[in-house]
């Protein structure tokens, strides 16, 4: 088995969790009210936990004494392979909740399939993560309905968030060479097949929330190949500051 491909596959999943976790953590002490501040911080913590499991596994696969911290804090922007939706700015509360809703729905479907992975470690991580994601999805979809079917202002803000983030959703269902290789080996997931179910859940929730589903227009991609939006660099400069300024600093 090509260990290098498995490494890249696991690393990409770890990057998704790490970058989304970092974005969510930026809400800590800035939430719209205390309970929601705690909710977003909790979800962030779950994503960091998932990132840690995946990046530790990736570090083992890479070998040569690589650590998960090195992967998180000492790679440059172009070496990160997260989906570009994960790095999009928090914006207002509606922007964050829409990003979370799109991703929670995707992760729920993705992780369900990943639990069946032939790779024991990936399967174990998926079994653990799916319980958390199910809970996250309950939280984000309830908010979509509450905001969409809420006041004129909340409706307008959540609709605008959906319209702005929609373009990043197609990337989730793309399959590259690594994905295909992992699928062939029954380790990875066929993301292209998750779209139908994803559409179904999204449509149901949007319709209950009296929100419109945008048309597909320009749908950018490239995260898995290290091509990112301008936002990732800023996020990394903040997240990696300490290890860049004081290399190998420990607690």
């Amino acid at each position, binding site marked *: 088995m090509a260990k290098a491909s498995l490494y890249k596959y696991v690393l990409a999943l770890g990057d998704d969790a790490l970058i989304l976790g970092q974005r969510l953590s930026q809400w800590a002490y800035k939430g719209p009210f205390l*309970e929601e501040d705690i*909710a977003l911080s909790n979800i962030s*913590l779950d994503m960091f936990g*998932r990132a840690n499991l995946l990046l530790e596994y990736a570090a083992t696969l890479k070998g040569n004494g690589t650590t998960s911290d090195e992967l998180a804090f000492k790679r440059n922007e172009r070496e990160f392979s997260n989906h570009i939706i994960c790095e999009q700015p928090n914006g207002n509360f509606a922007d964050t909740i829409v990003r979370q809703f799109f991703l929670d729905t995707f992760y729920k479907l993705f992780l369900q399939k990943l639990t069946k992975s032939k790779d024991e470690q990936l399967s*174990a991580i998926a079994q653990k993560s799916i319980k958390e994601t199910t809970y996250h999805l309950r939280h984000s979809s309830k908010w979509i309905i509450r905001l969409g079917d809420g006041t004129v202002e909340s409706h307008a803000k959540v609709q605008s968030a959906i319209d702005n983030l929609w373009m990043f959703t197609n990337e989730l269902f793309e399959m590259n060479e690594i994905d295909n290789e992992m699928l062939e080996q029954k380790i990875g997931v066929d993301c292209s097949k998750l779209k139908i179910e994803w559409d179904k859940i999204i449509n149901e929730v949007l319709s209950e929330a009296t929100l419109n589903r945008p048309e597909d227009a320009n749908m950018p991609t490239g995260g898995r190949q290290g091509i990112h939006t301008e936002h990732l660099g800023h996020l990394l400069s903040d997240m990696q500051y300490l290890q860049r300024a004081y290399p190998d600093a420990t607690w």
Partner: protein
Amino acid sequence: MVIEVTTASIWELLKTIPDPEIPAVSIVDLGIVRNVEFDDDQFNITITPTYSGCPAFSFMKEEIIRHLETEGITNYQINTSLAPPWTTDWMSDEVKSKLKKAGIAPPSQEVACPQCDSQNVQVISEFGSTACKALYKCNDCIEIFHHFKQI
């Protein structure tokens, strides 16, 4: 005096380690300690995290090490396992009643107020002060309480 260390005595020792966030119950009560085995002159202790990002998990590991070494036990190894994933189904009725006494509604589909047992309750927040709890309010006795989430 030499006291023989057995897997049973290690279990007893681990039962004295409280959960750092919910000290009313031990790490054994919560099902975090999955196994203690003696093999090739070494005690292999297997633990599993409740939530993958639980910040108390590394502290629990340190506590296990501290307790073992205080007892002079040095031939041990601590392993972390993820599968099967931790579930609140591993909690015994006895443990659930300990939680209830501490004012935390034990994991259940039908959440009841730990103070007055009323099921007329409402969710205030799906997320609480720790990853494993949600915040509720009792509509009868007006008490705010935590529910240990069922997962």
